[in-house]
């Protein structure tokens, strides 16, 4: 069932702005700001940043649930040859390198390890990049490169201990089934320091929300590093290799790095000096409803709702403002699915006057880290977590 999406069909789905832009009637600043929407296998309609390889963004209105449905989770591949077919009769996860023995695990073998499960936010390192000022090159995500999923799989540590780490192990490298169109394109391999891989919660997941992984989210298995950005969550996993020296290929260095300072930021538009690999996620809160530019009725109750999460430290509180930050109230928090999950927040409000209102939310995690009011900046467009403003109209 091949579906053909021509520019014309995009226009139908994405609406007037795209149509005008395609016809060249639109100022160039708006061109490209409205993305086409398409339906990929096992997915609902998602925004297409790029088609080959697919980078698909979740529209914000799909974040009203505590758990993101599998068909709504964003998609981010780096290299054009993504796995389109996987046969578990042939697929094996190879574990080796600086280990006592080599493993070649089938899916059945993988499922013999103790099964663990938790809910964790998956977020792309570049989520929100399109809001950087000044703008930076790279995937122009709005805030939809995230999702909250219940992952199930085997503990990475158990797999590594079965293989047996030899003394002198430094990094553990992960490779997947994807590859570039030309041999000169660096293969997408990522690594974690060996100490990190021995933490209790790092997982080789084979299920999302109780189902096998979708093909576009990494069937048959992927790495889960809860609290850390998605770049480490290697999809369609094929190899785990223990190394006796630091792993420094392209996708670890110079790609996916942040300035080596507490904020991971530098003055806007300047050049970064020393860098470190991107790691833990910053604390964020996002108002999902009402959505920006909504019009609501004076004197009618409104529920301001959203999601908040941090880099694996849970959320201590969320405060909400309806007057652009002058006054704040503590929001109610929803069901707690653990420190790696997002938590839903809500605040009941009844606007008494007509006019424009600026809604804001600010989350603090359990170790006291919160969100800056100003956007911090780095040249790769990572870590965005400023307090956002949702403008709405009351009539």
């Amino acid at each position, binding site marked *: *069932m*091949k*579906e*053909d*999406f*021509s*520019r014309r069909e*995009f226009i139908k789905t994405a609406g007037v702005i795209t149509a005008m832009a*395609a016809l*060249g009637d639109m100022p*160039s*600043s708006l*061109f*490209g700001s409205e*993305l*086409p929407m*398409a*339906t*990929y*296998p*096992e997915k609902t309609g998602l925004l*297409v*940043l*790029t*088609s*080959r*390889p*697919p980078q698909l963004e979740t529209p914000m209105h799909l974040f009203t649930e505590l758990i993101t449905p599998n068909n709504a989770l964003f998609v981010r591949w780096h*290299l*054009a040859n993504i*796995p*389109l*077919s*996987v*046969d*578990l*009769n*042939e*697929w*094996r996860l190879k574990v080796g390198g600086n280990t006592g023995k080599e493993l070649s695990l089938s899916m059945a073998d993988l499922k013999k390890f103790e099964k663990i499960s938790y809910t964790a936010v998956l977020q792309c390192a570049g989520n929100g990049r*399109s809001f950087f000022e000044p*703008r*930076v*090159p790279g*995937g*122009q995500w709005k805030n939809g490169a995230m999702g909250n999923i219940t992952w199930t799989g085997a503990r990475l540590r158990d797999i590594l201990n079965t293989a047996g780490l030899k003394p002198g192990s430094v990094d553990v490298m992960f490779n997947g*089934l994807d*590859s*570039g*169109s*030309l*041999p*000169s*394109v*660096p293969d997408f391999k990522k690594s974690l320091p060996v100490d990190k891989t021995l933490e209790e919660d790092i997982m080789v997941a084979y299920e999302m929300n109780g189902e*096998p992984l979708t*093909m576009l989210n990494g*069937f048959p298995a992927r790495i889960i590093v809860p609290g850390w950005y998605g770049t480490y969550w290697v999809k369609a996993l*094929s190899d785990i290799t223990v190394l006796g020296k630091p792993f420094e290929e*392209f996708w670890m260095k110079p790609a996916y790095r942040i300035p080596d300072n507490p904020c991971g930021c530098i003055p806007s538009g300047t050049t970064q000096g020393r860098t470190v690999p991107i790691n833990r996620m910053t604390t964020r809160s996002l108002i999902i409803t009402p959505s920006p530019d909504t019009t609501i009725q004076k004197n009618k109750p409104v529920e301001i709702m959203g999601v908040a999460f941090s880099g694996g430290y849970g959320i201590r509180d969320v405060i909400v403002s309806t007057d652009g930050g002058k006054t704040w109230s503590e929001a109610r928090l929803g069901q707690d699915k653990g420190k790696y999950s997002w938590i839903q927040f809500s605040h009941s409000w009844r606007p008494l006057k007509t006019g424009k209102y600026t809604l804001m939310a600010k989350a603090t995690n359990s170790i006291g880290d919160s969100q800056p009011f100003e956007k911090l900046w780095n040249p790769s467009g990572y870590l965005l977590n400023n307090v956002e403003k949702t403008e709405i109209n009351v009539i």
Partner: protein
Amino acid sequence: MKKNITVIAISIVLSAGLTFAGDMARSITLPDIKVELKAGAGKDKVETLCNICHSTDYITTQPPLSKAQWTANVNKMIKVFGAPIKEEDPGKIIDYLTVQYGSGK
């Protein structure tokens, strides 16, 4: 790694582009999305050379980058990723990108 990927002959179509063959195999077909680049000098070169490793929506979705930023981008494609672009081409490609998808300066 290629040997893990097999073409499945007998399969049942379940939903748009997803097929299963028994419980063990899965395969998908991606929608065929066409990206139309803006007309202008250099378009042909960009359409051919910048389409080898990825679709050209990588270009069209970028913010309006400066000439220096497009130059850095094309150099990265050549030096880091091995884009097969001949000595004389980068200038024309960079001009096209700066005029059509850049800040124009």
